[in-house]
């Protein structure tokens, strides 16, 4: 552990976000560190030699053309797929052999590209499922309605409503999640992820299908999440105004490999990134 702390943290972008990092974080190891991460599907290499580190309260972006392997990286981080190669260190702990649920308990929460809510449950219950591992009582206490049940359920209700209040959703608490409008569903997915008390939040295309004003709200919300919960956020997004607007560090993926890492300004001017998005300039 001490060995790791001495090593200079390979932060994605150390400089521009320094003033936003709380004092206690500056010399600490990054919350997430991927080393030579890779996965093959059959003969196809979907992600290869993926190296990245994220600071403890950093907002980082993962961009790239369609099919570059961005969601696959999320699936590797959350162990939906087990990596073929490489290691993932979460707060210095190797997540090798962990399941998706264990990774979540260790501190990674995520949202999904195509919204995955518990559609038949109420908004409040969706958040309470997120709180599952913070609420402590067993099946028998629940079935027999012992005092522990009432105490913990009250606590769960209060926490859930508190979280919903932060995102202006408390009025929707008793609505069925599946019947919410699209924007609210996206927000609820974030609330549910936050309810699991993560130290790193992964957002998969959070602005997909949103209009510019909704996107602006979302940007405010993401910054608010970082500032309120003091956690790191890694997001996949195609909306460049969002990515360039709030991300302190950006990582560009193409054909499963990282082609550039840096601050928004560096990325904007990187010739390889421009080529990946716009194609090669033809010599005239």
């Amino acid at each position, binding site marked *: 552990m001490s060995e790791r702390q001495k090593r200079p943290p390979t932060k994605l972008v150390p400089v521009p976000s320094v003033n936003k990092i709380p004092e206690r974080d500056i010399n600490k190891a990054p919350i997430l560190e991927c080393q030579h991460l890779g996965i093959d*599907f059959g003969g196809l290499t979907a992600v290869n030699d993926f190296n990245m580190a994220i600071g403890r309260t950093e907002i980082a972006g993962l961009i790239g053309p369609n099919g570059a392997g961005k*969601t696959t990286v999320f*699936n590797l981080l959350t162990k*939906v797929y087990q990596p073929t190669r490489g290691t993932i260190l979460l707060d210095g702990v190797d997540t090798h052999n962990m399941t998706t649920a264990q990774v979540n308990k260790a501190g990674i929460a995520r949202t*999904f590209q195509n919204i995955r809510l518990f559609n038949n449950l109420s908004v409040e219950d969706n958040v309470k499922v997120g709180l599952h591992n913070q609420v402590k009582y067993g099946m028998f206490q629940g079935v027999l309605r012992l005092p522990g049940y009432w105490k913990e359920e009250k606590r769960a209700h209060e926490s859930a409503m508190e979280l919903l209040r932060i995102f202006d959703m408390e009025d929707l608490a008793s609505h069925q999640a599946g019947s919410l409008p699209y924007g609210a569903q996206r927000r609820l997915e974030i609330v549910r992820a936050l309810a699991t008390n993560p130290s790193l939040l992964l957002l998969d295309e959070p602005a997909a299908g949103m209009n510019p004003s909704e996107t602006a709200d979302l940007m405010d919300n993401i910054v608010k999440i970082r500032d309120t919960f003091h956690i790191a956020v890694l997001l996949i997004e195609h909306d460049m105004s969002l990515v360039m607007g709030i991300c302190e560090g950006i990582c560009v993926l193409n054909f499963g490999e990282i082609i550039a890492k840096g601050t928004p300004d560096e990325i904007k001017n990187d010739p390889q990134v421009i080529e990946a998005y716009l194609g090669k300039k033809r010599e005239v």
Partner: protein
Amino acid sequence: MVIFLTRLINGISLGSVYAIIALGYTMVYGIAKMLNFAHGDVIMVGAYVCFFAISTYHLNPVVGVLLAMVVCTLLGMVIERLAYKPLRQAPSLAVLITAIGVSYFLQNGAQLLWGSNNKMFPAFLKGDALQLMDGQLRVSVTTVVNVVVCVVVMLALTWFTGQTKMGKAMRACSEDKGAAQLMGINVDTTISMTFAIGSALAAVAGVLYMSSYPILVPTTGSMPGIKAFTAAVFGGIGSIPGALLGGLLLGVIEIFAGGYISTQLQNAIVFAVLIVVLLVRPTGLLGKQIREKV
């Protein structure tokens, strides 16, 4: 050795019949994504039709079989049109219950029409058994017919799904109905056709099954139906070679289990093997492994 070979041959003979029934399940599942529980009862109807044709009207057995095929084909298409087609968008459980309803309907209808007493199916496959190994090993005509029919059906279906226009339409529908429709394939006709073929095969299988187990009652179809369904899952539901493999293996296992272990536990052993296979290969022996997209 002779006992072993005899049992193996009996197993293959029974397995061939299972394979033909399993084809009906597998094709319907592949294209309509439903478990057609009434399939076993179509077998029973086919057997009754053939029985009356042969023993009451004294028709030629071949004519009897053809008649049974025609009746079952029509029956399969009518069932699909009336009971399953309106439920194409419904949850799979609703379709399953409807199929169970159809199964009850056919069983009870048969009981009303033809009574619940046993009928002895006439042995129409006459002829001397093949003598092998100096007459120690006898292969009955029934066995030969079962295997030959099974092989012919299998080859014909492979050719049909691979080479003909309708067969290709079927494969397209089983991959993606919406896309198939956009390419100008008539999905309704294709599904109807699948039921027609599956039911015609059920009629053939019914007659073959009767030549090995000649007691005919309205519930005759349910046990071979469940077994053949198991065979289809065993081989990987949706796969035509899988149905053949699953059917043959199931038949052989059943006969071996009955012969070497215990006849009372015959069925239990067959199902236990199925469970073990599904644990090792969760989509059956030749089924496609599907990775859920996240």
